[in-house]
């Protein structure tokens, strides 16, 4: 198991995260595997991102610090739930998004994901920040994201760049 992934999960937990809901993807898989080894972080694998968003939004409303993790295509798949719950019901969640399709993407099927990620996050009114560098401080970023959720005005997004994801796997 990657020490870097374990460190990233440490950062999630130190920032207060209690529940990680995810749809499997290869870029964030090291994070999920590291999280599975923890007793202090509940982990749920969902079959689709709409379900992950719903669970995360419900858990957040119940007072649980939650992250919904997915690949960038997941924002498309979860778009209606994000829109309905976050924009319509004020039920917000924190989404952690692997930047599939980012600069350097070698897979043809990944390229289109980059074209839609930023416009969709803007359309969904999800302020977001990118973990651009290897070893970037996830904990502080997560804490800032939770502070935004506490305003009850917005969801928040953290995009894990290809560099960050490579670091997770190292």
């Amino acid at each position, binding site marked *: 198991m990657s020490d870097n992934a374990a460190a990233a999960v440490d950062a999630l937990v130190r920032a207060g995260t209690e529940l990680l809901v995810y749809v499997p993807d290869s870029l964030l898989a090291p994070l999920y595997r590291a999280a599975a080894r923890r007793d202090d972080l509940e982990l749920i694998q*969902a*079959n689709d991102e*709409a379900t992950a968003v719903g*669970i995360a939004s419900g*858990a957040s*409303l*119940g*007072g649980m610090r939650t992250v919904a993790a997915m690949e960038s295509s997941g924002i498309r798949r979860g778009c209606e*739930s994000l829109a309905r719950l976050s924009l319509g019901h004020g*039920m917000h969640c924190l989404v952690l998004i692997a930047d599939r399709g980012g600069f350097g993407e070698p897979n043809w099927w990944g390229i289109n994901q980059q074209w839609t990620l930023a416009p969709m996050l803007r359309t969904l009114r999800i302020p977001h920040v990118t973990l651009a560098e290897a070893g970037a401080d996830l904990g502080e970023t997560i804490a800032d994201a939770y502070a935004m959720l506490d305003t009850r005005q917005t969801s928040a997004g953290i995009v894990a760049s290809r560099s960050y994801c490579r670091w997770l796997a190292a």
Partner: protein
Amino acid sequence: MRTTDALGAIVGAAHPEALFVASLGRVASVMWSLAPTRTLFIDSLGDVVPVAAGLALAGRTKANVVAVDTDGSALMNLSAWPTLARVKPVNLDVWIVDNARYDSAGGFLSGSEHLDWVAFFASIGLQATLCRATSDIAHREPGAVGIIDTRDDRSPVVNDKSVDGVASRDIVAARIAERRGTPRPLPAVKL
């Protein structure tokens, strides 16, 4: 059976502090009349059960969470059910009110008339109990998804629910915070 009678039986049998997560349309109208301050109204097909599951997992309501979904909503996000089968919060009760149509859209059939709910749920590791009379509700298998047949309910839908999603969120969030004994995080760190 009538939706009013079915949900009256469910609310009556639930823990007095149970929280409900309700789908839209006729179900929302009835839940508004039965438990207006204990119901999170979700006007989003397909999201009722995931939200209820999340709320139950938070586990801090210290009472059951009861999902009152509908056939159209349940069918819109079939992916949610295998996830629920894996997660199975012990404090989550799930009901599907099946009138076999999209009432709010003008009565188009939903497709549930062809669906064997019991077989579908069995195939993914969940039990389901069909309820055709209010007496069936009390005899539902513990932990099973309750499927309530309201296909013959032609009663008018009363539109008097006066909360939107955000107001409903705040009512339920306040109730949860009170039950936890800790206030909600402040929405600002400075005045």
